[in-house]
């Protein structure tokens, strides 16, 4: 008697109740998502690969097949090579400066001190703002006539630097804004990670007389490793798609010194309606994303 009851309930317990009524669900619930996703994500990605082999202005059908010529032009283009280097630099700064800064702040605001919550919110606030707004605000701060640098220069009575108009300085100015805007996000991830560490480890370490650094090095860092790997992953993917913030700051200039892959795609592919060439940029971006994402996941995130 009890056995038959268990048997009857078993499918339900396994969470896969096989019963009538699955067909209407499949027919009603899946197609909207499938349609939207296929039409606006998967097909365009496939088409980017297809169009990248053509010289095409977007009207009529792509007919002028030119093989890999677009890619050849792309890698010969100095502005694109600059863009690749800038994307690499952005990635490097995000990992080497932003993440340690975020981690340091996360450990500080995780103390039970008055005002900790307010500090967290203040640090997170720039992340909530649109990149465009952040870019415009900093365009003012960097402005050689009105901004912070102008004020500092006039205080010391020297000629004011036009940071964003200087092709050697502009990229560092951009990097500063990136760190300003995004460190709070990583800090929040780390706070969440820190909260999940069992306090008894620290108590035990204190009993053993471990210094603050030893506790950080031997408890916090290893236990936070999954969060750090995740944070690095977000930095990498995020730095590849940087566009919104660059446009108000420099638009990729001066003389292409702050170009990223996406700003390059915009100014060389989209505004000139070079669909084939622009799609080639998209394909390169795609390949870099796949390689980094899968490579990174395979190497570092296997156990997470």
């Amino acid at each position: 008697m009890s056995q038959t009851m268990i048997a009857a309930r078993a499918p339900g317990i396994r969470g896969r109740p096989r019963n009538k009524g699955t067909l209407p669900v499949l027919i009603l619930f899946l197609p909207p998502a499938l349609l939207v996703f296929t039409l606006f994500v998967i097909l365009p990605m496939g088409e980017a690969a297809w169009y990248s082999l053509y010289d095409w202005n977007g009207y009529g059908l792509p007919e002028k097949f030119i093989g890999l010529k677009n890619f050849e032009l792309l890698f010969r283009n100095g502005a694109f090579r600059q863009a690749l280097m800038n994307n690499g630099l952005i990635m490097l700064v995000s990992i080497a400066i932003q993440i340690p800064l975020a981690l340091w702040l996360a450990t500080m605001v995780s103390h039970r001190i008055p005002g900790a919550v307010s500090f967290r919110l203040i640090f997170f606030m720039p992340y909530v703002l649109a990149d465009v707004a952040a870019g415009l605000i900093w365009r003012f701060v960097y402005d050689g006539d009105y901004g912070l640098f102008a004020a500092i220069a006039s205080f010391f009575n020297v000629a004011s630097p036009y940071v964003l108009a200087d092709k050697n300085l502009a990229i560092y100015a951009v990097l500063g804004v990136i760190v300003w805007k995004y460190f709070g996000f990583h800090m929040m991830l780390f706070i969440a990670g820190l909260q999940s560490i069992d306090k008894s480890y620290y108590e035990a370490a204190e009993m053993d007389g471990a210094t603050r650094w030893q506790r950080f090095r031997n408890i916090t860092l290893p236990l936070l490793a999954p969060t750090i790997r995740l944070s690095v992953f977000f930095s990498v993917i995020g730095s590849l798609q940087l566009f919104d913030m660059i446009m108000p700051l420099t638009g990729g200039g001066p003389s292409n010194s702050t170009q990223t892959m996406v700003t390059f795609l915009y100014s060389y592919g989209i505004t000139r309606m070079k669909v084939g060439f622009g799609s080639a940029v998209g394909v390169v971006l795609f390949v870099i994303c796949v390689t980094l994402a899968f490579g990174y996941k395979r190497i570092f995130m296997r156990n997470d």
Partner: protein
Amino acid sequence: MTDQTIIAGKSLTEPSVIAPRRRREVFSKHRMSFVTWLYLYASLLLIAAVVLLPLLTTAVGGFKTLGDLRVNPFGLPNQWVWSNYLDILAGARYWQMLGNSLIIAVLSVILTLAVAAMAAFTFAHVKFFGSGFLLNYFLIGLMFPVATAILPLFIRIRDLGLLDTYWGVVLPQVAFGLGMSIMLFRKFFQNVPHELFDAAQVDGCGYIRYFWHITLPLSRPILATVGIVAFVNSWNSYLLPLILLNTEGKYPWPLGIMVYQGEFSTDWQLVLAFITLTILPTIIVFFAAQKHIVAGLTAGAVKG
């Protein structure tokens, strides 16, 4: 007694740690030395100042005259000029931009919630041929920025006759957010106790009614999370509307603010007032609903 054993145990390896250990015992009772305290607050205040200074300068700068701004970009205004702000608030432009952003964001949220929740429900509860494959198909979308397919996307939207319409922006936006939304929903739905479903089945309730009457009412937290992510992404988005809209009357605020800056680029005081007013809704909502927003924006990261 315990004190002695610790000292004894520790002295084997590191005899010199006795003094610092005493200090940390005080620390462990959540009191810290004055030096530590000073270091902590000085650092936090410094970073908070760096975060807030550009924002405050922007807001205060909107109350200045151009001449005042030039002489004194960071102090309080000589004379508070309200007309910069009031003129913008009295004009139609500002409200129209915010209205456009709101329409696009609300449509995106509704469509995302509907489409993603339904798809995730099938993935969570119905086992069918190819379900694993299909789920992975959607998860591909997590990895790629819109930029990879932006030109083919433009051509698709144009050929569908959706160029320069709200839906033309909404559909790709929803599509690129689907992967993350489906993932978040599915995780949540899987954790709804299966006994509920069994009970509903006994009462003759099919999948669709179960979804509508039981799953959805239980899913308010995840609906809020996914909704917030979709809303913030849409509210701040720049690249898609930049390419898919060309009538200024339809521009959402990130685009509108760039146009405004282009028009009044020499009148920084107006631009600053405009920036302040456009980011004001974000900041108000952020502080009003900070818990939900922080949780929402880091949810994908923490749970993914």
